[in-house]
């Protein structure tokens, strides 16, 4: 019998393949290693990221689901809650106890109840509604607050880039 982390990841993969949530595709990069996944997220409709398809990489720890995975966009992103190198900063991905921004309550942290699907849905909603309180990308947070038009313009450029249009 394989390890519990592996079995759970396989179960989640099956679930995601059978009932894929709208606008999200995710699965292991290589079926020999279930601990590194690739995900494609479509930008939520009605936001500045609409129409974009954003690739991201998920790396799971060996004690998943007791510890959260790490998520990193592999395309260029400009968003208040995404670091310049693409790492995603949302509370659902932080284990209780480590709090990089010092504001998250433990109720919204990682717990084994969460899943890949919920993480990706949270990321979609994060794309739709950035939280400019936790500035993973301070420039983006500032622009989101003060110069929304410019922010939308940059987001659109990124969307076009992910689609290979420019």
């Amino acid at each position, binding site marked *: *019998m*394989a*390890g*519990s*982390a*592996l*079995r*759970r990841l*396989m*179960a*989640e993969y099956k679930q995601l393949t059978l*009932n894929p*949530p*709208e606008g999200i595709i995710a699965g292991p990069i290589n*079926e*020999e*290693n*279930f*601990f590194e996944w690739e995900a494609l997220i479509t930008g*939520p*409709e*009605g*936001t500045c990221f609409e129409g974009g398809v954003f690739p991201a990489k998920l790396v799971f720890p*060996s*004690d998943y*689901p*007791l*510890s959260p995975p790490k998520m990193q966009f592999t395309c260029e992103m400009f968003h208040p*809650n995404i670091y310049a190198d693409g790492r995603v900063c*949302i*509370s*659902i991905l932080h*284990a*209780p*106890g480590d709090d990089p921004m010092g504001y998250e309550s*433990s*109720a*919204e942290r990682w*717990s*084994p*109840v*969460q899943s890949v*699907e*919920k993480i990706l*849905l*949270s*990321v*979609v*909603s*994060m794309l*739709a*509604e*950035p*939280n*400019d*309180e936790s500035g993973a990308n301070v420039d983006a947070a500032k622009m989101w607050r003060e110069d929304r038009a410019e922010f939308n313009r940059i987001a659109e450029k990124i969307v076009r880039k992910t689609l290979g249009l420019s």
Partner: protein
Amino acid sequence: MRAASITFISLALTTAVVGNAFYLKKQFYPSVVYITKSNPSMAVIYIQALVVVVLIGKLMQKVFFGQLRAAEFEHLADRSWYAVTETCLAFTLFRDDFAPRFVAQFILLLFLKAFHWLAEDRVDFMERSPIISWLFHLRVISLMFVLSLLDLYFVNHAYLSTVSGGASAQIVFGFEYMILLMIVLNIAIKYVLHTIDLNSDNPWDNKAVFLLYTEVVMGMFKVVLYVTFLIIMVRIFTLPLFLFRPMYYTLRSFRKAINDVILSRRAIRNMNTLYPDATPEELSAADNVCIICREEMHSASKKLPCNHIFHTSCLRSWFQRQQTCPTCRLNILRIPGDRNTAANQAANAEGQAQHAPDVPPVPHPGLPNPFLNGVFPGMFPFWQQQFNLQPPNQLPNQAPPPTGQPGQSTQTNPAGQASTSVTAGATTGTAPGVQPGPNVMPVPPFPPMPPGFGLPFFCPPFPPAPPPFAVPPPMPPPGLATLSDEELRRLESAARDGVAARLQCLQNIQQLLDAAVLLMQQYSNAAATASAASVTSVPQPPPSSSTSPDTGTGVATTPTPTTSTTPSPHVTVTSNTTQNVAQAEEKQPSVSLSPGSPSSSRSNEEKGNSSGLTHSIRPDGSGPSSSSNQTVTSAPSPEQDEIRRRRLQKFSGIPESLD
């Protein structure tokens, strides 16, 4: 490409050097002597040797590992960097011995270390890959065999040379290879455990525990080795700087391993003593999927005080990290150890679940419904039984039950705060006119409990009042057999606070008795007059605002019997009863009111989601991370509203599909 060109250049240089020597000297021995005397020639030969070593390494890697994975390569690069710097530090220590042979030995050591790291990574990979081929097993087994043989040989060699030639740099090698031997042993144990797990058909729950203990034992060996090494080095040579980083990491991981074992043991103990096994009915009634591993629960499942059910092994490994319920984040350590019946515990938990609106309770049809008699949920389950058994007018027998039971029932969960304020509001015998406000106050979902408040001791009924003692003795359980020695000692503590706590407990009992007698007198008066002349209107004296927390201490629980023994809220009262009685009656609706709100919230929750899956992703699709945005962003314009509404529609279907 670059590696190939370097290899080629070095080969060409060597050929040139050797050819040149033969060309000059014509014979074997003179040319060898010529090469060893000439520094440039020797440099070329050394470079060639290095290249050959690297090539052999590559070959070994191909044989034993095949293609390296990216993560393995990264690990290797990181660790090699540290190992090289440490080797350079070690060179400074042995600069007198500095010789090609010495350098060669260090390079060999580095090489073997690299293979140990790779083997470690490979064995860890076993847990991650669904496909483990026979080639993998063959490679790992042969690698471990070769590595352990080499380590043993070098340890032996170092030992012999130290014994015969006295202390030298060989001590360092001896210790290094000893530590490598430990690593091989550790890898082998892990490999065996993983293999057993892979070949068994059922999940092996205890593997994690075995791994933990292996970690501790191996960590201990390593720490002992390092400390001995350090002492010997300091005595013979000087402070070995190169030793500090690995020693620090070993100590740290050893500490972590010990910590893990302690936490794990605590989790196991809690699991065995505090939480009941889930019964087959409960398993079939609920969703029957362990939310941690997403697999069905057939056996070995535990139910937490919040009624959530998990696999025992899943729960144990989670409790090693955190002592909260994975679903509702109820802090399980703050709930005092309830060693009474499981039903009592479940009733308390049910009361708590009602009061935390964010917690979707798992329905449990087998549980007694604490709402049936209109008593506050989960509070005073024993009182209810007791007073239902006894006729209401036996005054002296109405003494409160042994404090163990109120102690249990005032166990403070979020419900406890509200309910104690209810009872405080009803203590009209000694503290008249407490405002009945608190009992309808909404209770925050997960309020942080004051540290002393949740202890299994009879706390004063006023929530703001600080607990009387920081460390009260535990409640007397029904049977002493269930107590550990340590708990027994705590129970009989002769320390000052232990004695004081016992005294306080007795005083509380006395106050409770007095209050109960007083109240029952008033009650019998009221009942007598009520039966004589029935009056429909209840006088409403204005509630006085002030109350002294001191006088009310310990009387809190007494009115509850009146509520349970008089189920009809419209008890008739004559106008000539005392004001106290009138107030006691006035409080009654408020007492019976209070279960109303939680029960309604409960039904709402049951209508919505009962599996607890959707608690972090709200149906509106905004994840927990973005929940704070809505207040931060500027006032939404109509089209933003429209967008949000559309998104709501889009995502509202998802949580249901999750269930």
